[in-house]
């Protein structure tokens, strides 16, 4: 059996990534133009009611190229992106690159910690409840279902109320540093832990029925050790796959969490940019998210190979 040479596999990957990015840029462009709505008045006064002169309206339209035919705008849009120019945000009057550099660290920290918490909570509940007989299993599974269904907005406000307003353990809003990160990360992690837990549980129970588990037990391994060392490894693939999706889902959930906790972040920036029909900023953030998505899925593919030797590329023995 032969595998394609390394450079071809890389080429296919890169081409795939480029295709994803082009599609993201195009869909974004079309979506923002096909939805009814003129960005100009949004720019010229927002919600307060403004009374710009016709000259001002015309100048604004021209400044953002909105007086050009759609295909010209599209060509210019792609042309700029190809040269790596993300442009200037129309609503924030700041270069898209700067907006992203300002907002991204906060989002990445939150995403990473939320994913870590979700894995830790999910794994703990599953490991603690799979061996505990029907009651324990039902309890664990019930907890997961409830957690998975919790709305972020509600959970965030409840956590804030209990741990920040009442107990005063955490800053109420926008706390900097690690302490300020915990409540928002938990808000994102708990529902996600529910999903991850459900999937892991099913896989773990399947794995526990496998012959190799029986053989491990027969060799005198304790039940906990069997779960943690033998079966869990088999049960990791489904939640790992889910984590690729979860990163994308976290980005969108962060819109709400960033608003509740008054945090910086690309989620909120994206929401505001969409409302303001801010094409450069929406495109910049969508491309960023698409890139993260591509990278995370690549990482998940690589991790498969680490966790499960069966997925490794066959090598000559």
């Amino acid at each position, binding site marked *: 059996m032969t595998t394609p040479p390394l450079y071809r596999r890389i080429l296919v990957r890169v081409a795939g990534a480029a295709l994803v990015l082009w599609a993201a840029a195009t869909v974004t462009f079309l979506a923002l133009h096909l*939805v*009814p*709505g*003129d*960005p*100009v*008045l*949004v*720019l*010229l*006064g*927002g*919600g*307060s*009611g*403004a*009374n*710009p*002169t*016709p*000259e*001002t*309206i*015309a*100048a*604004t339209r021209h*400044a953002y190229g909105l007086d050009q035919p759609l295909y010209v705008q599209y060509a210019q849009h792609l042309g700029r992106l190809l040269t790596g120019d993300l442009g*200037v945000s129309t*609503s*924030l*009057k*700041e*270069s898209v690159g700067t*907006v992203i550099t*300002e*907002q991204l660290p906060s989002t990445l920290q939150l995403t990473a910690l939320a994913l870590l918490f979700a894995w830790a909570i999910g794994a703990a509940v599953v490991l603690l409840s799979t061996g505990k007989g029907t009651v324990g299993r039902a309890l664990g599974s019930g907890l997961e279902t409830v957690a998975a269904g919790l709305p972020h907005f509600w959970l965030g*406000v409840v956590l*804030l*109320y209990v741990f*920040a*307003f009442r107990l*005063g353990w955490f*800053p*109420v*809003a*926008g706390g900097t540093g690690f302490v300020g990160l915990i409540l928002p990360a938990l808000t994102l992690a708990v529902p996600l832990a529910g999903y991850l837990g459900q999937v892991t549980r099913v896989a773990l129970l399947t794995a526990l029925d496998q012959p190799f588990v029986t053989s491990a037990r027969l060799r005198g391994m304790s039940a906990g050790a069997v779960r943690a060392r033998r079966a869990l490894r088999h049960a990791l693939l489904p939640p790992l796959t889910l984590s690729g999706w979860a990163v994308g889902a976290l980005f969108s959930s962060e819109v709400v969490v*960033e*608003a*509740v*906790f*008054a*945090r*910086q*972040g690309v989620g*909120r*920036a994206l929401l505001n940019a*969409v*409302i*303001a*029909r801010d094409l450069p900023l929406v495109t910049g953030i969508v491309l960023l998210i698409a890139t993260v998505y591509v990278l995370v899925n690549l990482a998940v593919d690589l991790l498969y190979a680490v966790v499960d030797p069966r997925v490794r590329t066959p090598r000559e023995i």
Partner: protein
Amino acid sequence: MKPPSRLLLALPLLLLATACGTGEATTSVTARPAQGGTLTYATDREPTCLDPHVAGDMPQAYVAQQVLDSLVALDAKGRARPWLATSWDIAKDGRTYTFHLRRDVRFTDGTRFDAAAVKANFDHMVDPDTQSGTAGGYLAPYQRTDVLDAFTARVHLDRPYSPFLNMLAQAFLGIQSPKALARSKEANCAAPVGTGPFIVRKWNRQSDVVLVRNPRYNSPPPYAKHRGPAYADKVIWRFIPEPATRFAAVQSGQVDVIDALPPEDQRTAEHDDRLKVVVRDRPGNPTNLALNTSRAPFDDLRVRKAFLYSADVADGLKSVFFGQYRRAGGPLSYVTPHYSDAHENAWPYDPQKADSLLDRAGWRERDGDGYRVKNGVRLTAEVLLKSDITPNQLALMEQVQATAKDVGFQLKLLRLDAASVNTRYQAGKYDLRDGYWNTNTPDVLHTVFGSEYAARNGIHSNATYAKDPALDKLFRAAQATTDPDEQQRLYGEAQRLISAGAYQLTLYPQTTRLAAHHGSVRGAALEPALSLPYLYDAWVSSR
């Protein structure tokens, strides 16, 4: 408008108690203003640009009020008083204003404030490339500025325009360094440069704007409580969009002052001895639903009147805003100059009158759902709502919808995103549209009801499409006179015509609502021109 906290005297004791409770290291509450410290302010909406000449939305004016000075200030009665301009002469024809300027003021970038700076500012506001929606719109009559000498500037307008001075007092038209204005739009949006008490140090998008004290400040407005530089060394101007979070932040003392105090928390705030609540209504056209008179059904005056009678606004306000918002009955908020109180109760809730008016207008039959019909058409009105409408405001709309249904109106509430709302709005595709207009002159009536602002296709500030030659004549006459008595008469007559024309269902005045953590900050106030928060006199009293 609110009485001061009743427990002011017991404050030191209470503070000590709360300090123990929260574990905060409180030293003592000094009674006299103290220099120094950092003041944290939290508001709901973030500006899109800190230069208020660009675009022109309320959050921009809020920040500009701390950073920029204006040519003139308003006193509590709405009269223009000297600020950066020491005096002015208005030519007999009302079209030429000559400003004599202070000679001892510098912008915080070192540039001298002079007549050339005034000219650069006006030219910047009206330049289409500035993309000014508010300041540029207010300056529509502007022609040019002549620099007569270093400290005398003469402004030429194309028509008599007596609201000019009032508008100059608004932070939207604040004066900026001409050297700074010459930078790129991005640079000036990020850090405008004025002569004001604070300097923009850094804008951390979606988090805060850091302001530092201007140590050489020497040009406070006449309504300021002290002279010289501001008290606080630094102001962190934070954005906390979620109302519950914002209120909890000030309650816990993590933030010193908040605005947009949620109405549901106002009672709690007033009973919380650590908090001081400052509420003041804003001048202008109150929050309202504009009736589109350019299409059926509201092209019929009887149907408009019936709709106004059908709405139980007072009851809605009581249940939705917990009694914190008063009803605004006339086209002007009661704090606007030349406001007339004759129309506050012109449109009470009166379903019988509404029913009989609709009967007379030919909407006699009712369909199976209880809505009125005429020639097979249901009596329907589409309500175009702003996308950022709060849950409370939406609940009020639902109450209006419910009482309108009782008399046979079907109200369809349309919640769309901002750009879609604007598209429908520009095309005139709506029957009712929620809106308000904050400004410090009765000339707001001209902006909101003048026929020249009722373009059928395009951006228009006249949401009702009112086109009444009698009104237009009154506006022109009022703009042409600087005699307060004559203005009072003319704007009074305009208010009467507008109220009688049933153009708007007015709801409640726009308000600025502050809650200050009294243990940590004193002196946070509202300025008189637009009731904007004003931190020049505020001081950090403990930490």
